């Protein structure tokens, strides 16, 4: 019997958010790449919430973009509404979030994949990885096709042995009724990879024409839209936005849920997987936060070509009839028709401690993994890992040194470091509190932080990188100028201050000190800064932030310097940690597997368990 047999450099398994980034990165680095999906109609599918970004996730997308990823560009093309969250807070926690047109998002990404040189997009279920002498040599599909390759990137998302549950109904499918991938798990286990079960869930989609929006509060997007991608011209994406709506659950909703708890597979014990605490089902919310009289719900559009609305805040695995009953208690949803049921989904994934920070398996050379398969959750977390797994797979094939992003330079670094070193019992979500250097890791400076790395890898063009260097120079020069400047007390100055509700100055002041006043900013003070050069907005923003929060920023830079010092101390591989009596036994085996690691790492996973690296050594 003859079978299809082809040869590639890299095989990517799964075309979700992680897989797309991985495949694009490999192809863009010149490698012959094939990406498999169980359905050509589910490329970059958003099976849960219809948005990209949000607190700290927005940071991930900006960083991804600075490293040459696709997600930012893709959402800029397909968003329906955009908002900068936390605008009243400090710049470190400003975060972009956009509502996506799901179908358009998927279509655009598919187009991008298909237009990409060196990249083949193929519908098939990968059922086997081929390993020889601890090294990946290929992958096989369910239909028997053999694909020889030098690296495989696993981005299987929630598809491995997936089952969807609500009430006592169990459907053995992936998300959205798509085919589950039932054969690959066994092949992975055969090759020494340990799998575990995680669980997540999604709310119902409701027919928008059956919703009474007059009973809800309309939620608008920002007036001026900020793009995700540093390559997108802001002026090109200003458009009429689609609204979301806010409504609430009430006592009646909660009563129905409490009454039917025994019919939820979460509570009846049918679900074995571990679910995320940050994304609780409405059942969980009602049980764990019994004192809350109501929970917020956001009703969000799924796209322009469908009338489906996503009910954010009310994911559930209740039986169909209870779902109807409980959604109908919500103001505006009294007569709502459900289009797709809410459900919980269980799937195979790994404890990412089996990976190096490059996202390569410790046990199988050439096998990489990214996305929800690694025990994370969220499109953005997935995409970020997909990119890193992808470019590292490519770098390995090319015989180049792989790249590890560290905690002090990016949220992506924090994400991966947490995943591969910390113990986790639930799908991992990025949170701003997980980044210890968040004052430096802002969404506004992701290009300044990471373009150099993206350029060195080969995913950022010379032209783009030159601009970042130029921008950096302009910022530095302008900060230096502003720091030297003093402002005298005169009528022009004090008139401006008064008009901005700021206390007039009686003696001369440093210009910086004026900028630092909460009610003032670099831009607002332009009229009294005659020598100011004409600078682009993105430069002015950096000058303002760096001056305004200088004290805090300097403190963090010092912490980072210290962190780097610890990180740079490599502890040689081959130390027998059993000879270190004070090291708790439970950490010895873990650390034994790490090979050569940095001192910071050692402290991190070994002696101190989890904690802040910067605080550890000194």
């Amino acid at each position, binding site marked *: 019997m003859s079978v299809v047999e082809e040869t590639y450099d890299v095989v990517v398994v799964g075309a979700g958010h992680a897989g797309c980034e991985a495949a694009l990165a490999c192809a863009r680095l010149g490698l012959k790449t094939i990406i498999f999906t169980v359905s050509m109609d589910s490329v970059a599918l958003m099976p849960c919430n219809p948005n990209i970004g949000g*607190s*700290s996730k927005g940071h991930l997308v900006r960083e991804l973009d600075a490293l040459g990823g696709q997600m930012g560009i893709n959402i800029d093309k397909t968003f329906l509404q955009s908002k900068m*969250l*936390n605008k009243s*807070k*400090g710049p*470190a*926690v400003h975060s972009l979030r956009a509502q996506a047109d799901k179908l358009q998002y998927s279509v655009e990404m598919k187009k991008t994949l298909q237009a990409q040189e060196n990249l083949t997009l193929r519908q098939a279920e990968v059922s086997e990885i081929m390993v020889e002498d601890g090294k990946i040599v290929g992958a096989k599909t369910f239909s028997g096709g053999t694909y020889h390759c030098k690296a495989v990137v696993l981005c299987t998302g929630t598809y491995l042995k997936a089952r969807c549950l609500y009430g006592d109904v169990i459907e053995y499918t992936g998300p959205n009724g798509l085919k589950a991938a039932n054969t690959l798990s066994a092949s992975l286990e055969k090759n020494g990879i340990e799998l575990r079960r995680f669980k997540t869930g999604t*709310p119902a989609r409701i027919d928008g024409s059956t919703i009474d929006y007059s009973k809800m509060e309309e939620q608008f997007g920002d007036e001026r839209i900020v793009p995700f991608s540093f390559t997108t011209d802001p002026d090109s994406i200003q458009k009429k936005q689609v609204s979301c709506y806010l409504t609430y659950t009430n006592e009646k909703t909660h009563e129905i849920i409490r009454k039917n708890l025994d019919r939820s597979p979460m509570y009846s014990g049918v679900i074995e997987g571990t679910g995320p*605490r*940050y*994304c*609780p089902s409405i059942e969980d*919310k009602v049980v*764990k*936060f019994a004192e*809350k009289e109501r*929970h*917020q719900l*956001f009703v969000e559009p799924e796209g322009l070509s469908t009338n489906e609305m996503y009910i*954010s*805040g009310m*994911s559930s695995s209740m039986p169909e009839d209870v779902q109807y009953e409980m959604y109908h208690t919500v103001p505006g949803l009294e007569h709502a028709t459900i289009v797709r049921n809410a459900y919980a989904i269980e799937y195979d994934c790994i404890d990412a401690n089996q990976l190096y920070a490059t996202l390569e398996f410790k046990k199988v050379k050439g096998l990489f993994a990214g996305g929800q398969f690694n025990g994370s959750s969220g499109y953005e977390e997935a995409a970020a890992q997909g990119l890193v797994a992808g470019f590292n797979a490519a770098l390995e094939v090319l015989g180049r040194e792989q790249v590890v992003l560290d905690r002090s330079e990016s949220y992506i670094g924090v994400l991966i470091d947490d995943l591969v070193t910390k113990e986790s019992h639930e799908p991992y979500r990025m*949170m*701003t*509190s*997980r980044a210890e250097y*968040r*004052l430096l890791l802002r969404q506004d400076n992701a290009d300044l932080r990471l373009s150099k790395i993206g350029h060195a890898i080969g995913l950022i063009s010379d032209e783009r990188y030159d601009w970042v260097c130029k921008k950096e120079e302009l910022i530095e020069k302008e900060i230096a100028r502003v720091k030297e400047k003093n402002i005298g007390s005169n009528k022009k100055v004090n008139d401006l201050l008064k008009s901005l509700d700021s206390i007039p100055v009686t003696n001369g002041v440093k210009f910086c000190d004026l900028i630092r006043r*909460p*009610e003032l900013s670099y831009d607002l003070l332009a009229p009294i800064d005659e020598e100011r050069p004409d600078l682009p907005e993105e430069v002015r923003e950096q000058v303002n932030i760096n001056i305004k929060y200088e004290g*805090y920023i300097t403190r963090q830079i*010092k*912490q980072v*310097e*210290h962190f780097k*010092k*610890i990180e740079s*101390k*490599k*502890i*040689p591989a081959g*130390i027998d940690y059993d*000879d*270190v*009596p*004070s*090291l708790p036994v439970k950490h010895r085996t873990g650390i034994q597997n790490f090979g050569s690691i940095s*001192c910071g790492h*050692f402290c991190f996973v*070994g*002696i*101190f*368990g*989890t*904690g*802040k690296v910067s*605080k550890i*050594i*000194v």
Partner: protein
Amino acid sequence: MLEKDTIAAISTGLSEGGIGMIRISGDDAIEICDKIYKGKQKLIDVESHTIHYGHIYDGDTLLDEVMVSVMRGPRTYTREDVVEINCHGSVFLLKEILSLVLRSGARPAQPGEFTKRAFLNGRIDLSQAESVMDVISSQNEIAAKNSLRQLDGHLKNQIVSMRQKLIYEIAYIESALDDPEHISLDGYGDHLSEVIRPIMDEISKLISSAKDGSFIKNGIKTVIVGKPNVGKSSLLNVLAKKERAIVTDIPGTTRDTLEEMISFGEFSLHMIDTAGIRDTDDKVEKIGVKKAISMVDEADLVLYVVDSTFALDQDDFDLMEKISDEKVIVLLNKSDLEVKVSEEDILKHLPKKKIISISAKEHTGLDELKEEIRSMFFSGEIALNNEIFITNERQKFSLEEANRSLSQVCGSIENDMPEDFFSIDLMDAYESLGKIIGESLEEDLVNQIFSKFCMGK
């Protein structure tokens, strides 16, 4: 805490006598030392790797005559600038000089920190990494244990409760940042001020109590043992000059332990009165007896009190066997009455131990006891743990750090800074307090966020 700051510690044991040494390492080591040292030359002007004779002054007060070694990095143990002050090794002086150095800008070294710096600065070869890590982690363990052991249970609870309040607020801010559409921070600054002001007051009180020494049980751990009703509590009361323990004629009155700090000038005794030890069927008393015996194992010095008006019995023999390996002073109490126990009787069971006849009631023999303890201390026979003093300093330092962070928060609130800036300093305060009770951040925060606040989707 940053690598660059300057650290100091007593580098010789506190009890060895003769010469004592304080080591200072870091960028400001020489500058700090110049503030307190007077000699022919300013240390900043002397050549590296030279030794200088001079005096240490606290303001105008002469503290000691010293030899100071100045070694500039990188040819030093830590590869940083290092100054070593060699002084007369009295415990009192070493403590005074270290305090002075700390007041002048250094911070107390963490356990193993000189070695850590040596390692981080590339002084120690990679092949030594293993043993370095071992030293560091085991010393951390000891420090954490010390810190905890010396901390009064009540104070520990106080710190735990302050930390709980702080982590709750941090989690609130963080959950609002992560989920701004569900959790609002409107007017939060005012609320936070109300929460942290009382915490700052509480910490200030702790700092002042740390200064007068009552904060830490900082002394030679001395355990009083003996059969019931031989006068152990009376002895404690007489030494402490107050009626603390209940003194009755009923054997077994002290069923738990009682503790007292007794100052001997240069050092203190952390004196612990235990339940009388005898074979008993009384449940509560049994627990006390068990505890008393376990205290003996941890003691630096044991005072064994015998009622000399009764002949020794089996309980005494058992007890003497248990303490025979410890540093023991035997006290023949009630020497004002008719004595039935002689020194020889004791020496048969406890050879070579010092025996003193006293009367707790008539206050006789007490001077001799004090003199004996003093001489044991200065001969180095019993030691005040070097760690204890430095632990006290570290704890004080951590409290001060916590308060500095909290006043930063107040500053941020007053300056109308955005709320995410509050949590940075709150976190630092939380961690500083954690150092005192030996707890780090771990997953506290994320757990708090999820358990206390209902998040998203």
